[in-house]
């Protein structure tokens, strides 16, 4: 019971934390799960919950995103999509596409796959975007002419999760490359290269440990290398004290998601410079 309570408590606290800050824009949202992998024979469901304090209208859509060498996901206009990306958009069906939710009201989005006959084996992927539609721009006291310029900038914010369709027997492996402490404009980052080979993406958790130290120095979950890139840099921002601690010999382990067994994808001893 106690184990179940943790997540409940989180939701409970989130629901209560919100009224403390006045609702500036309706549209706060929760999405679960954070990733879908479909094999074409059966569908899945995603839950969308309005965790704001006002009713909100949400729109659900599919987007094309491509991984860049730095691990970022670039948005691609549908007109610029490759045939495989267009095939992914066409084979993933979902409903509903627009929902109005009162506060704390979850909605199930059903996701199905229709694979056309003759589709070549491979991994097909689109990113499902959940986003609130703003009902009105934040109203401030109107300024009359001559009273200066006032600015209201409203964010339209949302969450995307990957929806992956795998057709045929696919395999992939990954190799951990050099590791270093890099400097980003926002401070130090633990960086390493990750190369991928095979016919599908790899996805998993990174754990950095040092011999003789019981606790991992760094844990990063949900690191993917998608098939459109053969290699990417993983850059994880860290506090300066951890950066100093990470320098030297470390053991880096890349494991599959715990939900699919947590097998090791690759493990390597590296000296962090």
């Amino acid at each position, binding site marked *: 019971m106690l184990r179940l309570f943790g997540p409940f408590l989180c939701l409970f606290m989130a629901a209560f934390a919100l009224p403390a800050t006045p609702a500036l824009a309706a549209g706060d949202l929760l999405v679960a799960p954070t990733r879908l992998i479909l094999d074409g024979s059966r569908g899945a469901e995603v839950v969308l919950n309005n965790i704001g304090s006002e009713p909100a209208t949400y729109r659900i859509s599919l987007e094309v995103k491509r991984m860049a060498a730095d691990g970022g996901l670039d948005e691609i206009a549908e007109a610029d999509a490759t045939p495989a990306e267009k095939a992914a958009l066409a084979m993933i069906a979902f409903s509903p596409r627009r929902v109005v939710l009162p506060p704390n009201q979850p909605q199930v989005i059903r996701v199905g796959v229709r694979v056309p006959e003759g589709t070549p084996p491979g991994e097909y992927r689109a990113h499902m975007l959940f986003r609130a539609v703003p009902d009105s721009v934040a109203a401030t006291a109107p300024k009359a*002419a001559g009273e200066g310029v006032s600015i209201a900038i409203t964010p339209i914010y949302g969450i995307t999760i990957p929806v992956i369709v795998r057709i045929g027997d696919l395999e992939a492996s990954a190799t951990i490359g050099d590791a270093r402490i890099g400097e980003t404009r926002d401070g130090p980052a633990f960086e390493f290269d990750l190369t991928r080979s095979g016919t599908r993406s790899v996805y998993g958790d990174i754990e950095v440990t040092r011999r003789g130290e019981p606790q991992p120095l760094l844990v990063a979950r949900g690191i993917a290398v998608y098939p459109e890139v053969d290699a990417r840099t993983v850059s994880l921002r860290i506090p300066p004290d951890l950066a100093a601690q990470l320098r030297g010999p470390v053991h880096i382990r890349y494991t599959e998601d715990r939900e699919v067994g947590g097998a090791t994808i690759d493990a390597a001893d590296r000296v962090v410079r």
Partner: protein
Amino acid sequence: MRTIGMKRALAGVAIAAFAMNAQAAQAASATGQAKAKILRQIQLTAGSPLDFGTIISGSTASTVAMTTAGTRTCGSGLSCPGTGTAGSFDIQGTNGAVVTVSGDSSVTLNGSISGTMTAALTYSANTVTLGASGGNFQVGGTLNVGANQASGDHAGTYNVTVNYQ
């Protein structure tokens, strides 16, 4: 109040668990087991809005900059009474999860009386590693103010998403 909040939260999770577990539940019924799967979730909430405050334009074009840390710099020739804020967003999810942040690099603001303005946008992070208490990122920007910019309310929207890999 506490119980009501709790019940609502429970209802949300319960539905999530049931929805995803239709198949598991069928499989389980044969052996009489009960299962509940807690789904990994991600939450995104908006905090303070990106607000450049009130600006009184001058006779030459200038800029007002807001850093992602919330510091406002008023360009020469402008007068900026009051204060502004950087936009902020809060992310909750699995401890240790790495998410990417992507958003528009500029926003166009339409004036209530006349004229338009543009602002370049900056984000405090491209990726956020969630800790035990989640994570957050901020949005700043540089607003272009025209010479004798028309008074009035200028409003615009920009897109920002948090992406699971």
